[in-house]
């Protein structure tokens, strides 16, 4: 009798664990919606916690202006809304019918799903030993015809770990203008530093006589002005070139 109780208990425990893990799985797959964010906010989660949740989950937000206003009315802070917007921009909608477009049916990526396909390669990061069949063309006549060689080498292409979460960012080297040079001068940077900065940055200086007078009035030295002039010198815009003749 006791054994039956023990068995029953263990079975129930196992069932519970299974149902929880299934639920957890379901949770990880369910995209976060506007309503879910409002719920989290109303539940009293801190702003940074809500943002962390947004960044760690798949999302399906409706961020049309009306819905954004609704979010605001429902007490969702602007920082959270910004996180939603940012996540939405970075989110790749692969759930629509786009992925089913016939164009991708024959793509190497699609085929890579089937790891048993011989000789196919995941060019987006591979690992492990290869068991491949290489169809080679002759190179420069040195080995003519098709040859079939069975590789047994263990080739490991290093694939450093991707940073968790987030979206890619475009780094920008700021374009220097007259104002940014004046700011550097007023901040007390040395001539040498400013000149080097000019040499290493995109530039869009206005060096008309009036602007030069103003630069000097704002204590920009001749050496710096010379560097600015060099950055813009010999400038010939594409306007001097032949007309685009697209029909």
């Amino acid at each position, binding site marked *: 009798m006791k054994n039956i109780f023990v068995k029953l208990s263990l079975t129930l425990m196992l069932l*519970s664990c299974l149902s929880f893990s299934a639920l957890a799985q379901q949770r990880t797959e369910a995209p976060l919606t506007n309503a879910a964010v409002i719920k989290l906010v109303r539940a009293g989660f801190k702003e940074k916690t809500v943002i962390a949740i947004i960044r760690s989950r798949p999302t399906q937000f409706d961020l049309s202006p009306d*819905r954004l206003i609704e979010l605001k009315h429902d007490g969702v802070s602007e920082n959270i809304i910004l996180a939603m917007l940012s996540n939405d921009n970075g989110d790749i909608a692969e759930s629509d019918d786009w992925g089913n477009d016939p164009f991708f049916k024959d793509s190497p990526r699609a085929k890579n799903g089937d790891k048993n396909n011989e000789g196919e390669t995941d*060019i*987006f990061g591979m690992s492990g030993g290869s068991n491949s069949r290489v169809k080679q063309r002759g190179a420069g006549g*040195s080995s003519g015809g098709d040859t079939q060689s069975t590789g047994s080498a263990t080739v490991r292409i290093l694939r450093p770990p991707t940073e968790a979460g987030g979206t890619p960012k475009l780094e920008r080297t700021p374009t220097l203008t007259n104002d940014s040079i004046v700011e550097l001068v007023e901040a007390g940077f040395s001539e040498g530093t400013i000149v080097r900065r000019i040499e290493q940055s995109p530039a869009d200086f206005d060096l008309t006589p009036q602007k030069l007078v103003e630069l000097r009035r704002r204590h920009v030295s001749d050496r710096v002005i010379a560097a600015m002039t060099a950055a813009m010198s010999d400038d010939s815009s594409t*306007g001097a070139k032949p007309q685009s003749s697209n029909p």
Partner: protein
Amino acid sequence: MRTLKGWTRILLCCSLLLLSLSAANAQGDKLGEPPTMPTPNKEQEIDPGDVISVSTSEVLLPVTVRDREGKLVTTLTRENFRVFEDGKAQPLSDLALRQVPVDVVLMIDASSSAAANLDDFRRAVEGFAAKLGPEDRISLIKFDDSVELIQDWTQSRVQLRRSLNRIVPGVFTRFNDALLLAAREQLKSAHNRHAIIVLTDGIDSGRGYTTIEAALKSLLTAQATVYVVSNTEIERVKKREELDSILSSTPSAVRFNELRIGDLREGLRVLDASETSLAQLTSATGGRLYKPASFDQLDSVYAEVAEELRHQYALYYTPLDKARDGRFRRVKVETTDPSNQVSARIGYFAPSR
């Protein structure tokens, strides 16, 4: 015995508690759904007036036409084109063909062997810029372990030349990220034609955030035509020469170099796969894949792309399907002369509400 009985009870209670909790949770505590009865969410409410909204937005299709010998066909008129969207013919107005400036994002893979041949790249880019029109603009993106906008939009050749001097070689390749960022960040303007010319082997290191499909989706959304100047052929020749050299040596040398042989074969396989992917990418966006045999040929390749951009048709039409449903719509362009080869992107994403 008592202890065992006690444990059994505890286990039973815990199990029942867990089961009841999980059942309750399963009913409605998912973050995406309300916990109570399935009432429609606010965001799912549909205003009848919003179901189908009429838009007069036009679709711009840059189209390149070549004859059977591969020469650019530049004399076609609106009557020579047929446009199909999801299989349905679309009407073309008298203003279907227009002159539109082009915004070109030049991209260089600073982690590949291209970075070791920067002088060739600089020369090719300067020659390319010289062939553009007065309203055309160029920006420059370098990618390796990061994606960096070296030069924002400019029409100044001096600024372009200066920016080329700021490219330094790097490691790893965020190719997919770079494509996505170029599309999303640099090609926002809807007025001009958009083109991307990228010098790369196309092998992403897998350190980024983006799949090639996602990058392609962004490119199609940005209506960008992608030209890839691939150094895969250059790399392939190098690898083959080395492989042939090893294989033609003595059997003991072959055995000694077994690992290197495997490495080279794998490298060749990766190059093949990359080329296939690049060919699809360029074809989907209406662009072209170039595979120069040496870096000396970059000049002529970039000149050819400039020529193509200058003679590209900017074809406009207003889709019959005016629903702003965000759906992908397949587009096909034909000319009345079936022997012509037409390059245009495979489709576009309808605007969403």
